[in-house]
């Protein structure tokens, strides 16, 4: 059996990135890997919320009503504002205050505590979805316990699954971007966060570079922390197989066959933490309440023409709850993982189940 090049992987944006190119020219492959990795690190440096020197932090800290930004910043902001508009305000890039109040004030990385121990500025620390789900029923039962039982912790109500909604007077609607002059006007206090759209947007940028440098028909994919962009499959060639990681078990429980475009998953099992009161928080904020959303869905996997579109669609569907999510995924297909852990397939023509775990290993 011929050996095949393994994906070029590296850590970036607090997660794992991977790029795979099926091309016999090793020199060209390495050159493309270097170019892509350099771009992604630069993107991370420019848009991180956890480094005061980043352009994002400088724009957020600037008290002037109009600020000059780089071309890169302007292009990302245009994409983020498109995502907010397309999702009806659910994928909102101006929820920095809410996400910090929810406890996400430092980089939590892609997994549990991957960036080191929790500090005093990050709530009680990182947690796992499994811990949160185990505690939910107990916390719910405690709500009936009388408070005179001193050894029982303060009751924390289990979150009731509720669809998220757009923020009233959303900050993103008041942002004015001039892409010609590279100026951004926004009301005082409106701050930006690239967490909701940055990886998908970055994957699209790398994909555009690969598509420009490689011949049509060359197979490749870009993986930005699970947001995938895949080469277009030529007629007669086999499709890409994309595995979905279950948010609770971690298994590759399902696979999707796609002929190009993008696949992205939004999940509450990444960047989850435990608050001082015993409740759990995660990075997907309900714009209407400013608190982490518990909509009855643990993750949504969506298919799109671009990674930005797929990522936006996945987040939109997860925040909107199961009913709306089914409607949103009906066109292109996807997967819903309910709070029980059950996986619901949307548009089964593109989804194969179950898969052979040995094959997927």
């Amino acid at each position: 059996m011929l050996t095949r090049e393994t994906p070029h992987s590296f850590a970036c944006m607090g997660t794992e990135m991977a790029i795979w190119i099926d091309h016999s020219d090793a020199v060209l492959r390495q050159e493309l890997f270097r170019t892509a990795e350099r771009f992604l690190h630069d993107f991370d440096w420019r848009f991180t919320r956890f480094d005061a020197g980043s352009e994002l932090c400088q724009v957020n800290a600037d008290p002037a009503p109009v600020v000059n930004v780089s071309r890169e910043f302007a292009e990302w902001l245009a994409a983020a504002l498109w995502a907010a508009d397309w999702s009806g305000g659910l994928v909102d890039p101006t929820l920095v205050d809410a996400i910090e109040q929810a406890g996400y004030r430092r980089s939590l990385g892609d997994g549990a505590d991957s960036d080191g121990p929790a500090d005093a500025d990050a709530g009680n620390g990182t947690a796992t979805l499994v811990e949160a789900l185990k505690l939910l029923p107990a916390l719910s039962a405690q709500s009936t316990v009388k408070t005179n039982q001193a050894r029982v912790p303060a009751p924390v109500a289990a979150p009731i699954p509720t669809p998220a909604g757009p923020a009233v007077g959303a900050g993103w609607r008041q942002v004015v971007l001039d892409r010609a002059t590279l100026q951004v006007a926004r009301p005082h206090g409106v701050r930006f966060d690239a967490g909701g759209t940055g990886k998908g947007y970055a994957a699209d940028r790398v994909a555009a570079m690969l598509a420009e440098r490689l011949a049509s028909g060359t197979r490749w994919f870009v993986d930005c922390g699970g947001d995938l962009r895949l080469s277009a499959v030529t007629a007669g060639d086999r499709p890409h197989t994309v595995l979905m990681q279950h948010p609770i078990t971690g298994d590759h429980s399902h696979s999707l066959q796609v002929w190009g475009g993008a696949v992205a998953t939004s999940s509450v099992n990444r960047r989850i933490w435990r608050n001082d009161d015993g409740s759990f928080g995660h990075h997907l904020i309900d714009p209407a309440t400013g608190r982490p959303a518990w909509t009855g869905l643990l993750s949504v996997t969506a298919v799109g023409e671009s990674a930005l579109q797929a990522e936006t669609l996945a987040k939109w569907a997860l925040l909107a709850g199961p009913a709306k999510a089914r409607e949103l995924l009906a066109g292109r297909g996807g997967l819903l993982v309910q709070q029980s852990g059950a996986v619901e397939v949307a548009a089964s023509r593109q989804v194969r189940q179950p898969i052979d775990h040995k094959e997927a290993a």
Partner: protein
Amino acid sequence: MAVTSLAIFLTAFAWMAWRVRVGADPVLSKVAAKQAPAPAKHIKRVVVVRKVIVTELPPAQSTAAPAAYAAPATGGQQSYSPPASAAPAPSPAPAPMPVTRGS
């Protein structure tokens, strides 16, 4: 009865003697051939055409093994290793499957 049997015997003997003589004489043979009845013209020549499927066999299925793989002269257990060119064409490794996970 005896006369009849004798007559049949002599007739058969005479015919056999004539056949031997004609076969030995080339001139008489040609005469005899000319006197033979011509084949009926209504009988056409029947030609059977077989449909042939040509299959190009891979080297490994060649009927004769290369001399390099003849049995060793010293005896012992005979072994056969296919030539390198006869090995089945390597199949491409499966492409890596990317994993989508929560971001």
